[in-house]
C-alpha cells in the first residue's frame, strides 16, 4: 500500500461518483484529464468498475433461479391482497386457498379487493372460482349479483368461453348466444373494470350490475359471455373497445 500523491488524493472521493455519472461537467473534465495522465488512478477506476461488472453478473446469473420464487410470491401476495391474513406466505410453500377465497368473498371482502381476484386468476385459472369468488356487492344489488353469478356460471360452463378466456384468442369462437351488441359489450366492460378494483364513488358499481341483471335472459348471457374475453384484454384495449361502443351508441349513423 503506497502513499497517495496529493493530486491523486484530491480526486479520490470523486472516482465512484464519476463512474456513476454523478459529477458535474467541470469536475468530470478535470478528473478525465487526471486519469489520462495517472496510471495509478486510472487503474483504480478500472478496479472499481470491475466491482460493478461482477455485481451485475451476479445479479444476472441469479435471475433464472428466481422464477419459482417469484411465482410463489405472486400467489402469496394475491392471497394477502384478498384480505386473507392467513395467506401470509408460510415461507417455502405458497398455499392454494381457493376455498378460503370463496369464503372471504362471501363475507364481503372490500370491494376494491375484487380487482385482485383477477390477479389470482392468472396464478390459478379456474373459472368456477372467479364466478363464485366475486365479492358480494352491497345488499341492494345482491339479487342482481346473484343472477349475474348464476348466468355467468352457465356461460362459463359452455366450452366456447374457454377460448374466449384464453389470451390471444383474437376471434371469438362460436357461441350459442348472439354476439353481444355494443351496448352489451359496454356493460360487460364496465363490469370487468369494476371487478378490477374500480369501486369508484360507490354509486357506480351497483347500477352496472343491476342494469345487466335487468336485461332479458338471452341478452344477459351475451353480456356475460363477453366478460371472459374482456378480462383477458389489456386495460387500454378494453378502454378502446368501450369507447367504440359508446360512439356507436351515440352516433348510430356512423
Amino acid at each position, binding site marked *: 500500500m503506497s502513499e497517495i500523491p496529493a493530486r491523486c488524493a484530491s480526486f479520490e472521493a470523486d472516482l465512484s461518483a464519476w463512474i456513476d455519472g*454523478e459529477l458535474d461537467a467541470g469536475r468530470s473534465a478535470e478528473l478525465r484529464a487526471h486519469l489520462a495522465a495517472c496510471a495509478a488512478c486510472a487503474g483504480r*477506476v478500472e478496479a472499481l468498475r470491475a466491482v460493478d461488472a461482477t*455485481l451485475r453478473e451476479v445479479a444476472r446469473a441469479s435471475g433464472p433461479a428466481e422464477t419459482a420464487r*417469484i411465482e410463489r410470491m405472486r400467489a402469496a401476495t394475491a392471497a394477502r391482497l384478498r384480505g386473507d391474513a392467513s395467506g401470509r406466505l408460510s415461507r417455502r410453500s405458497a398455499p392454494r386457498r381457493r376455498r378460503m377465497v370463496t369464503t372471504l368473498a362471501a363475507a364481503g371482502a372490500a370491494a376494491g379487493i375484487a380487482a385482485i*381476484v383477477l*390477479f389470482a386468476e392468472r396464478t390459478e385459472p379456474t373459472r368456477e372460482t372467479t364466478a363464485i369468488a366475486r365479492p358480494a356487492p352491497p345488499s341492494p344489488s345482491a339479487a342482481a349479483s346473484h343472477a349475474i353469478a348464476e348466468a355467468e356460471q352457465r356461460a362459463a360452463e359452455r366450452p366456447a368461453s374457454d377460448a374466449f378466456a384464453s389470451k390471444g384468442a383474437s376471434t371469438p369462437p362460436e357461441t350459442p348466444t348472439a354476439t353481444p351488441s355494443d351496448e352489451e359489450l359496454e356493460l360487460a366492460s364496465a363490469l370487468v373494470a369494476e371487478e378490477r378494483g374500480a369501486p369508484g364513488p360507490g354509486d357506480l358499481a351497483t347500477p352496472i350490475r343491476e342494469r345487466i341483471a335487468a336485461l332479458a335472459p338471452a341478452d344477459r348471457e351475451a353480456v356475460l359471455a363477453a366478460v371472459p374475453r374482456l378480462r383477458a384484454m389489456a386495460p387500454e384495449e378494453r378502454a378502446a373497445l368501450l369507447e367504440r361502443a359508446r360512439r356507436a351508441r351515440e352516433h348510430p349513423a356512423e
Partner: protein
Amino acid sequence: MSEVDEDVRLMLALRAGDGSAFEALFRRWSAPLLRYLDRMVRDEADAEELVQETFLRLYRARERYRPDARFSTWLYTIATRLALNELRRPRRQNPHRSTDDEDAPVVLPHGGARADDVAHARRIGEAVEGALGTLPERQRAALWLAAVEGLSYAEIAASLATTEKSVKALVHRARLALAERLGEKWEART
C-alpha cells in the same frame, strides 16, 4: 412510451382502480426487488416476505401516488425502509449496523486493487457477493442501487432518507471495499 412512463401509466391506472395494473407492476418489478432484498437481508424467505410487503404497501398507498417522482424511487424507498427495519429486529445480529459512519473521511490504499481483469471478476462473483454481505447495510444498499439497479444518487438519497453527499461516500466506500476484496483474490491467485 418509455419504460419509465410505462410505470407511471400503470401506477396511475392502479390508482384509478385497474387491478390488472398491479399485476403488471408486480411482473415488472418483483425480480429486481427480490435480488435487491436478497442482498439486503441475506435470507431468501425474509427477502420474499419483504417483496410481498413492498407490493402490499404500494397497493395500499396507490391513492397517494403522484407521478412527480420516478416510480422506481418510490418502490425502492418502500423496500429499503422495510429492509433496514428488518435488519434492526432484535433477532438479527448484524455486527456492521453501527459502524456505518457516513461522515468519516474516506481513507484508501493506493494501487492495492488489480484492475485489469473484468472477466476474472465475473468468475469470482461469489466471493464478491460474500464480501457485499459483510458491508454495512447502508453501504450495501447504496452500492447495489447505484451499480446494479442504476438509480441516481438523488434517488438513493431519497430511499435511504439521507443526502446525496452521504450517498456519494457510501457508494464509494462500498465499491472500494469490494475492489480490495477482488484485488486480494487476484493477488492470492498469482
